[in-house]
Structures are given as C-alpha cells and as structure tokens.
C-alpha cells in the first residue's frame, strides 16, 4: 500500500533537515502507529506524504500502490485514496460542511469512474456516516469547522474520512485534545472503518488511543529517523519507560 524509501525532508526554505532517512512499509489492511517525542518529525511525515506545500522533499521516494506520488499535487494524491485527518482542522467560513463533503466525495467518485451524487443521493449517503461518529444532522449545515469545539473538529475529520472511503488514512494526532468520550467515539469510528482492504497510519504522542485501536506495528520516531519498530507491545513499553532510553540509543547510534 505505502512504501517510503530513505525519505529526507525539511521546511521549504530552511536549512534544518527534519526527516533524515525514513524507511517504512505499510501493507494492505494494516494499522501502524507512529510514536515519538515532540519535534521528532511525526507530523511532518504525515504532511509530507499528503503533499503539504510548506515542506520540501530533499531525497527519497514515497510509493503509494507502487506509484511515486511525490510529484503529485495534494488533490491528486487525495483522489487516489490518500486521506489526512488534520491535527488542527482548518475553518472555512460560509462553506457548509455538507457542501464540502459532497464536493470531496464527488471528486473521489469521479476519479473512480462512479457517478457523482446529486444533493438528494448525497443526503442519504451521509446520514449513515453521521451515525458512525455520533454527529447530528445539523452539523452538515454548519460552516466547515467554524465554531466547532476541539472534539467536534476531530469527529468531523473522521466523518470526512468515512465519506471519502480512502485506501490509506493518515491520522495526525487525532487523539490530542479529546476527552474520554470523544476519544471513544473517534476510535470506534476508526475501528468500524477498518477492513482488509484499507490501511491506517496513526501519528500519536500518547499510548492512550492504542487502548482502543490495536495497531499491527508501532514505530518510534526519534530525531527524524525510525529508532525502533515493534508490535503493539512496544507502545506499552513506551508508556512505562518514556522515550528517554530510545533517545539515548539514538544518540549513541548517531555518533557511531
């Protein structure tokens, strides 16, 4: 599904390299968690995969279903089935949620050669998805993320994920800022969307969300490199011991 080879990236126009040679492979049907301390490059990795224009790829490849996507615009990547749930979802005043999601869903449907939904068909389609994230229909009429609480914004991201039916979903700290109920709703939403055909990459600082969503693999990102990979038990280990022991290891390896 996703194969990243020796990826180096930095903020456009700046010297400091943030991603310093990432190698990662996510197969169909797998859930991978990317963990790590603040500033280790977790969110950058998600944004670079999605094609955020603020970042510059210095070298390496990102293959999605075997195709190098680094030259593609973000919208082309999205239409191929790559979804990023934002850490800070953006407000778009005056544009209703329903309108955005309908345009998004239709953009994907068009790409897949399916008929676009008219407003009535879309209504039927979206009502089912709303239940998944326990959102009321009036969310559809509100402006995109404008005046939403933190939890509502994150649920709205999952609603969009559910509607667009992506093959690979990148969840950028979707758990941060959520109270326990919202975390449960979001996690259950994600779990119900898991199939043997699609994959997830969960970027998270805390182990907490992994109590709800069981990952197939956990990777720890330290200073722009994957310092350690393992099974879901690695997350628990981190919960107990923190990141310090890995940071020390990384330094030793870096100097060697």
């Amino acid at each position: 599904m996703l194969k990243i080879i020796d990826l180096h990236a930095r903020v456009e126009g700046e010297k400091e390299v943030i991603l310093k040679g990432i190698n990662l492979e996510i197969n169909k049907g797998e859930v991978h968690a990317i963990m790590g301390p603040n500033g280790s490059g977790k969110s950058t990795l998600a944004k670079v995969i999605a094609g955020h224009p603020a970042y510059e790829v210095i070298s390496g490849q990102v293959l999605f279903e075997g195709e190098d996507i680094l030259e593609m615009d973000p919208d082309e990547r999205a239409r191929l089935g790559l979804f990023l749930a934002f850490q800070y979802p953006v407000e778009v005043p005056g544009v209703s949620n329903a309108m955005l999601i309908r345009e998004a869903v239709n953009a994907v449907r068009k790409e897949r050669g399916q008929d676009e939904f008219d407003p009535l068909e879309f209504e039927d389609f979206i009502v089912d998805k709303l239940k998944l994230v326990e959102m009321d229909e009036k969310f559809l009429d509100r402006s995109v993320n404008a005046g939403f609480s933190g939890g509502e914004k994150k649920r709205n991201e999952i609603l969009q994920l559910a509607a667009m039916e992506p093959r690979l979903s990148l969840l950028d700290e979707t758990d941060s800022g959520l109270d326990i109920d919202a975390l449960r709703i979001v996690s259950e939403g994600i779990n119900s969307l898991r199939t043997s055909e699609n994959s997830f990459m969960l970027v998270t600082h805390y182990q907490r969300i992994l109590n709800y969503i069981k990952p197939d693999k956990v990777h720890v990102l330290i200073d722009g490199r994957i310092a350690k990979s393992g099974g879901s038990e690695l997350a628990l280990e981190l919960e107990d011991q923190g990141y310090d022991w890995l940071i020390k290891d990384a330094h030793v390896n870096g100097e060697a």
Partner: protein
Amino acid sequence: MSRLTEAEAVETAASRKYKYGFTTKMEYEEFPRGLNEDIIREISRRKNEPEWMLEFRLKSFHHWLTMEEPDWPNVHYQKPNYDDIIYYSSPKEKPKKDSLDEVDPDILETYEKLGIPLHEQKMLQNVAVDAVFDSVSVATTFKKKLAEAGVIFCSISEAIQDHPELVKKYMGSVIPTNDNFFAALNSAVFSDGSFCFVPKGVKCPMELSTYFRINNPDSGQFERTLIIAEEGAEVSYLEGCTAPMFDTNQLHAAVVELVALEDADIKYSTVQNWYPGDENGVGGIFNFVTKRGICKGDRAKISWTQVETGSAVTWKYPSVILKGDNSVGEFYSVALTNDYQQADTGTKMIHLGKNTRSTIISKGISAGKSQNSYRGLVKIGKKAHGSRNYSVCDSMLIGSECGAHTFPFIESSNNTSSIEHEATTSKIGEDQIFYLQQRGLDEEQAISLIINGFCKEVFKELPLEFAVEATKLLSIKLEGSVG
C-alpha cells in the same frame, strides 16, 4: 504538477485574465477635447434637447468649475487632465434605431462577444437590455412587452424627448447637481444612460438590465441612470460594465438616481468589470461614480448589490436616504482588488424617518499589491425614532503585499435607535487551500469554494445568472494569486 502543465496553466490563466479587452473598430463623430460652455451647448444641440435640459447642464458646469477633485479617498492616482478628455463620443452611424436590424453590425458583434445577445428572438432569459456603447444607447430590447405593462424603459436621451415631465421632476432630485465634483461633471456632460419608470402598483414583468461598454480610448463615459418606482411598484435592475484594454486611463463618472415612493421596491445589482489596468498598474478605468436612492414614501425599500472586480481606481458609495417611515435600505457588496487596483467603496445610510432599517454587508478581498478600503456612514437623524442599522465589514487578504482598510463612520442623534457594527479581517492561507486540496479539490476549486463562502451573504442577493457569473469572475481574477 509537471513543468509542462504548469506552463500551460499559467498561459491559460494569463489569457483569461481580461477576456473583454478587445476593441471594436468604429468611426466616431469628431468632437473637440476639453470642456467649456460651447462644448456643453453642442452636446445639448446634437441631442436636440429642450432648453431646461441645457440650463441644467450649464448650471452644473458652473458648479463644477468652483469645485475641487476630492482628496479624501484612500486612493492615489494621477488626476485626469480634464482639458484632454473628449466629452462626447458616438459611433458615426446614426445612433438610435427603431429596430435592432438597423444597429451597426459591428456593435451588435461586440455585444455578442461580450455574451450579451441583443436580438430579442435569441434571448433566452427574461431580461430586457439597454446597451450603452461609449456614450450612446444603441439598443433597448423588449420595449413592447414592457410598455404593455406600463413600464417605460429607454435611454435617458429618449426619455428627455418623450417623457420630459418625469425627467424634469426627478433628475437631480436625489443627487443635486452640486453634490460632488464628479456628479457635477456628469450633470454637465452626461451623454446617455438608462431611464426606467414603473407606475403605481406595477410589478415589472422582467429583470431590466444595462450593459455599458467604453470603446474609444480618449473619451470619458458619463452615463446617467434614473429609476422611478411609484407607489407599490417593484423593479429589479442589473448593470454590467466592460471596456477594452488601453494603456491610458479612461474616466468613468456615472450618476445613478433611484426614487422609491410609498411601498415601492427597487433592487439594483451591479457586476462591475471595467478594465483594471495591467499587472504593473498601467492603464485601466477610473471609476468615480455617484449612486444614491431615496425611499421617499413609507415602507419603501431600496437594495444595492454590487460585485466590484474591475477598474484601476474605484470611488463609489451607493447610498440610501431613508425618508419614509419604516423604509428599508440595504447594501451588499463584494469588492475585489488585485495587482495595483485601488478601491475606496462603501455606502451611506441616512435614517430620517421613524423605524427605518438598514443593513450593510461588505466583503473586501485584496490580492497582489492592491489596496481595498471600506468607507461607510450610518447617520440616524433626530426624528428617526426606533431605527436600526446592522453592519458587517469583512476583509480577506491574499498574499502579504496588499492592504485592507475600513473607515466606518457613525452619527446618531437619536437614542431610541440601535447600531451594530461587526468587522473581521482574515487571510486566505496555504493551510486553508491545502486542507481543501487534501479533500480532493483542485486548487482552483479550493479557492473558489473559500471565496464563495466568504461572499455567500452577498451572492445570495444577486439574481441567479449573475451569481453564477460573479462566482466565475472572482475565481478567474484570483487565479495564481495564492501561494
């Protein structure tokens, strides 16, 4: 995006920038440059005007001579040399025709290119059009159908000939000849424009529309529009403007007066797309326009909706005098500036009658190196008990080299009235566009969605075809400005 498609995209965007920029080759009746009494007498003579009209012009001219071009707007430009302007320009063919078949085919072709077919049989929409080419009205459509309903819709020149009593009564009654520098100039030299009269109790059976086109590089355009809705009458009027691309500046100083009697309702919509000059700020139209309406009777309503996207410099404040009790004034505006465009636009709501209400929704979008100012006055008079105003002024900035300014003035002499004012400034950013692109929308769709959201409250006031046109226009104007 690969290099090749990027180059193609840039090329497409560049060529779409101002698609109305062509010139029509016409022969013009010669007219000397500059302005003096003789010129004014000559304009009046050629138009075969009655004595009172000439007097009106001369009086205005003498006012104008004593006045100064205003310096207070937040715009900077080389003031026009008023001695070098041609004040009357008309295509050589005899201008006004009884039938469209007699109109110069070149002019008809121009309007076809602009997407405004004047042939009535070709018109799909139920819209009557008056086309003003340079200074002269060349064609008014659907006259018969309107006449059956009792509506008079014709050029102002014809109205002066055929309905002198109405013109004499109302012209200059809302905007006095000495109101301001540009209005005085217009009153002296106005060449043509539209006239509309909707009698008591009549709902105008179709949308009325005027398209203005400046074609001659050396002429000013001074059109004059007068709309009167008698008791209980209703009319919706649309105005569109385009001009060819010249590297000199052309002056457009129009005057529009609206009169709404008791229970009358006038809706006036403008999509202004005069040539804005090139990307370095060379050329473009100086759009110095005075528009004002009066709600003369009780429960009258006047609503201005404007989408201002063109012109090098805009100076324009469509206003409403709320004289009748319970009368309503509305101003919905989207003003977009890009490159070196400058706009100083807004409204005045003058509350005189009791329980009068006004709404101001202004959306300014600035891109490139442009400057965009909202200037508004809400004035509540002593006797305007229980009056209310609600104003929203939102500005959106695209890029870091443009400016947005608001100058709201409030004068209230009545403490039973309420005035609410809200203002926001936002920036359309990379993050917003990236978010929408991540949802599968391409950059153009993303920008157009954001802009539409921002302008929604104004666009919903426009007649449907105009709303679609306005949305497209804004997207084209902003292509390549973000990022």
